[in-house]
């Protein structure tokens, strides 16, 4: 398989007991590509993301990352392989500051022979944090502030800045602007554009049609746990996408499987 394919999934399936949350999803994305995942609530978008990031274990199917088949036992495995995820529920610890949150679970340390009591390299982490924030053009008044004193936008930026700090090979954002105001949304979108300029691959789960058409190259639509369309942005328009989301239309190649 070509190294140019960042992520490939075949027959990705997840059943929660009798509920078929995700059924036979085939997915592929190229280097430098920004892909949006759209669909109604419960269409399987977040389930799809959770299978790829190792948060849950898939029922069936295969996943390749840069041509290599992967089976993540947990989110840390996925991170170590280079997949950074900004979750819908912000995975940030309120009482810790910015570097602490960025490096949570993979701290820079000294004296590693001390096991759990190995010593934190605060200075190294601060430096890397500043570099990561600069790379994503995230502006935060003081990185020593705890997260609880930050606005929703700033929090989201911290979550996103994680991806830049660790040279991720694939970034996944699950509705990163759902809870944000206009200005904050702009800030996040600006970061996404910066990622695009650096040709860092991104999967964006979003309900926001304008945002999707602004930011991505390709749109994949989910419906009732199945992929029902795979559209290049140039060949489609918002109305068309809505038709796919609501089920008025189904992509040619998906007709057989879709209900």
């Amino acid at each position: 398989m070509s190294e140019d394919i960042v992520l490939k999934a075949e027959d990705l399936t997840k059943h929660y007991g009798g509920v078929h949350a995700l059924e036979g999803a085939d997915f592929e994305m190229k280097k430098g590509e920004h892909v949006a995942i759209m669909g109604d609530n419960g269409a399987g978008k977040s389930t799809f993301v959770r299978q790829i990031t190792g948060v849950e274990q898939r029922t069936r199917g295969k996943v390749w990352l840069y041509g290599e088949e992967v089976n993540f036992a947990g989110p840390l495995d996925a991170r170590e392989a280079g997949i950074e995820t900004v979750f819908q529920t912000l995975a940030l610890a309120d009482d810790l500051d910015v570097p602490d949150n960025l490096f949570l679970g993979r701290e820079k340390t000294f004296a590693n022979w001390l096991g759990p009591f190995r010593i934190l390299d605060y200075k190294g982490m601060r430096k890397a944090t500043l570099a990561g924030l600069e790379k994503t053009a995230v502006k935060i008044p003081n990185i020593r502030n705890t997260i609880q004193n930050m606005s929703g936008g700033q929090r989201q930026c911290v979550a996103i800045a994680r991806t830049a700090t660790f040279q991720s090979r694939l970034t996944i954002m699950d509705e990163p602007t759902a809870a944000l105001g206009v200005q904050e949304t702009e800030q996040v979108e600006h970061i996404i554009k910066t990622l695009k300029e650096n040709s860092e691959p991104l999967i964006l789960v979003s309900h926001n049609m304008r945002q999707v058409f602004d930011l991505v190259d390709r749109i994949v639509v989910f419906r009732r746990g199945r992929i029902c369309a795979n559209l290049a942005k140039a060949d489609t328009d918002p109305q068309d996408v809505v038709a796919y989301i609501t089920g008025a239309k189904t992509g040619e190649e998906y007709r057989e499987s879709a209900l």
Partner: protein
Amino acid sequence: MEETSHGTGGLTFDKSKRSWPNEMNILLALIIIIVIFEILGQALPYMKDQSFLFDSRDRFDSIFNEARLKIIILQVAIIGIIALGVTQVIITAGIDLSSGPLVAATAMIAMSLAQTELVNGYPNPKAVFGVWAMDLPVIIPVVAGLIFGAMIGAINGTFIAYFRIPPFIATLGMFMICRGIALWWSGGNPVSFPTESFKSIGAGMMPVFWFLSLAVIFHFILKYTVYGKHTYAIGSNEEAARMSGINVKRHKVLVYMIASMLAAFAGVILSAKASTAQAGMGEFYELFAIAMAVIGGISLTGGRGSIIGTVLGAMVFGVIRSGFTFVKLDGSYQLMAMGGIIIAAVVLDQYRQRNKA
């Protein structure tokens, strides 16, 4: 906003912008309480101008009343050691109610391995084991106590982390189990007559030495090690900690083990100090330890608190105890005042948190 050398506008980690640390408030409260007792000493008619803090009678040829200062800290040292562990548990949003009875159970076990064979030339009348357990090196009762503590902590932690028993319930059960062990150990009889070397680890100001040394060590561990960072992270947002790849369950077991080992060590030191071990020892210690942490500004919902805060909380505890004795008010007033202060500490803290957000 100030331009920084990093060139990206607001990016900075200027130390001066860090908020007023919570610990300063407790220090302030401590000073205020001392001043109140100082004033009471001067103002109350029956006190005859005594000073609480200073050496008013030139007995010791020094500025401060050192005898009082020593008593203040000695009184809280042993419960303070427990509080160091409870602090860590509470930071993970847990609670440990088992520490008081654990003190008693550990005291019994340690003392049984610290007895002398002969007391005034006669066989030890309180002997628990045979001659093999007599006149052992001091390290053996200490290590035995710590191992017992580690076991209790591991059981607490396992039930809480892996079986999802609420910490309050799991440690409440362990509270009763440990008290039961302490009573069962020697059939309710006290265990006494330890070796001189065992007595020496709890003699004089030794409890204070252990308390402050352990406080320094755990302050460092909580602030500068991965263990500490993960402890705060779990209390702050357990879900985030899990998603970040922290092994939350294993970490919780470790925290409860460390807390119980500290309580067990307190039990060893207490029995050495008292030269005896009794099943009723350590009554209310678990609650006093929690109270010290609470006065020290810890949040029972987790994520916030510090060793420095708890040490200051312990000092407030000690000063109030000593102060009420100083103004000749008996223990009943002391308990009432302490209760009021605990509630006031939490009310003030919540008010402060609301204003900050």
